[in-house]
């Protein structure tokens, strides 16, 4: 079990990024004990949602979480989020506005597990939250997720995406996957590329944080549309960045580094390992490091198979390129005293410099 030490001081801003190799969660201390949680993954040692286990260990009361944001519905971003929501019943629960529609709500219901056990991916987690909650808050471009005065400063959490065009693109894309009578029940589709993700800008008075979720690049639906918007471009440039979509080429928009970020921000990201898709690639790492020398990844552990040699040899007769999905859990913690010139970076578990 990782030992995280003490909670942040009341005038200390914190962004902690958790990731096991396939999964991502973020805990943000906004000041004066107020927290924002974004997405969820499982801490393998605690066997519980990583951000919830973290807050419990450092002594943060469950009531101190103001909002929980599910940036999108993919399995690697919502594992355990229904438990996290249950642990923080007073926190607002925010989801992408693409689900503020009867047909997209039907998609979540269809793949909730009731009719399609084992096929749900992340839809089941979000649907369970929706059943347990009386209210859900759909967020899209310009949504005010949280606005509060902390440490005598106005702290404001706003959504930069999804942009309106992405909303309609998602509806069109989804239509082909809606269940129909006498059609075989199949696994929930992956629905890529991702233009429905909620990306967040956190203004903390004299500085800002950008959380890029898994939003991908597109001139009308993705990052370019966000950056081209005057309101987005007027946000305070951030000095800390959760790099979008695991640092991938498809999530990269050079203008983000120019318009939404200050020069050489602290950047952190989680890996994504599933099948042939392994992010970030070496080229992705090089590109991120070309933008900032202060780049970190939550898990840099080896993906070598973990089983005894006889089992590995026998399975290897049928299955090649065997790799572990969750090889090593880690966390990147950024802390910054209000008014301090730079972030202090701490690495836990399998986290390392990029």
């Amino acid at each position: 079990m990782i030992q995280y030490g003490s909670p942040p001081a009341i005038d200390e801003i914190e962004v902690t990024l958790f990731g096991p190799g396939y999964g991502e969660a973020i805990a943000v201390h906004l000041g004066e004990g107020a927290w924002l949680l974004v997405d969820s993954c499982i801490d393998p040692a605690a066997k519980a949602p990583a951000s919830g286990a973290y807050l419990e260990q450092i002594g943060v009361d469950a009531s101190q979480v103001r909002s929980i944001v599910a940036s999108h519905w993919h399995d690697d971003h919502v594992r355990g989020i229904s438990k996290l929501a249950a642990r923080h019943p007073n926190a607002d629960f925010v989801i992408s506005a693409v689900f503020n529609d009867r047909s997209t709500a039907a998609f979540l219901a269809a793949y909730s597990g009731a009719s399609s056990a084992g096929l749900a991916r992340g839809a089941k987690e979000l649907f369970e939250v929706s059943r347990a909650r009386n209210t859900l808050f759909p967020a899209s471009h310009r949504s005010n997720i949280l606005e509060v005065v902390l440490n005598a400063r106005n702290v404001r959490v706003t959504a930069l995406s999804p942009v309106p065009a992405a909303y309609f693109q998602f509806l069109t894309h989804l239509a082909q996957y809606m269940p129909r009578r006498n059609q075989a029940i199949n696994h929930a589709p992956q629905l890529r590329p991702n233009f429905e993700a909620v990306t967040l800008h956190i203004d903390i008075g004299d500085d800002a944080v950008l959380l890029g979720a898994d939003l991908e690049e597109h001139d009308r639906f993705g990052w370019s549309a966000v950056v081209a918007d005057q309101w987005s471009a007027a946000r305070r440039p951030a000095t800390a960045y959760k790099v979008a979509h695991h640092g991938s080429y498809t999530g990269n928009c050079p203008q983000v580094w120019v318009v939404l970020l200050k020069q050489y921000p602290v950047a952190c990201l989680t890996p994504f390992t599933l099948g042939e898709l392994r992010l970030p690639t070496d080229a992705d790492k090089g590109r991120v490091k070309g933008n900032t020398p202060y780049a970190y990844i939550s898990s840099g552990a080896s993906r070598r198979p973990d089983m005894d040699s006889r089992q590995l040899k026998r399975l290897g007769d049928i299955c090649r390129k065997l790799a572990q999905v969750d090889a090593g859990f880690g966390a990147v913690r950024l802390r910054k005293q209000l008014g301090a010139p730079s972030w202090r970076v701490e690495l836990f578990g399998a986290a390392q410099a990029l």
Partner: protein
Amino acid sequence: MQVWEGTVLGVNREAGVMQVLLDAKIGQMPRHTGEVDLEWVSEQDKDLVRSGAVFYLTLFKRTRQGSIENSQELRFRRRPSWSAAQLKQIEDDAALLYSKMRPLPTSA
């Protein structure tokens, strides 16, 4: 004996392979991914090979003509179709979910 529940992550028919996610059904082993040749899939299951499909891979030993040899079975799970009752339930669940949405204020 090894028993794995597999999920197809992707299929490359030109290369004759499928990318799979494997969960051990016996013992406490972490999840793995890998690549399986489509030639291991039986003819009767070939039409089921698609992204998201679920299969079971069993690796075992058997005695044949007095000698022990490795054997394996890879079988895909066949899915039922959506029923009218399920579609009605989905419609009701969706209406309830939709009724809980409360849009956030937006910035000018």
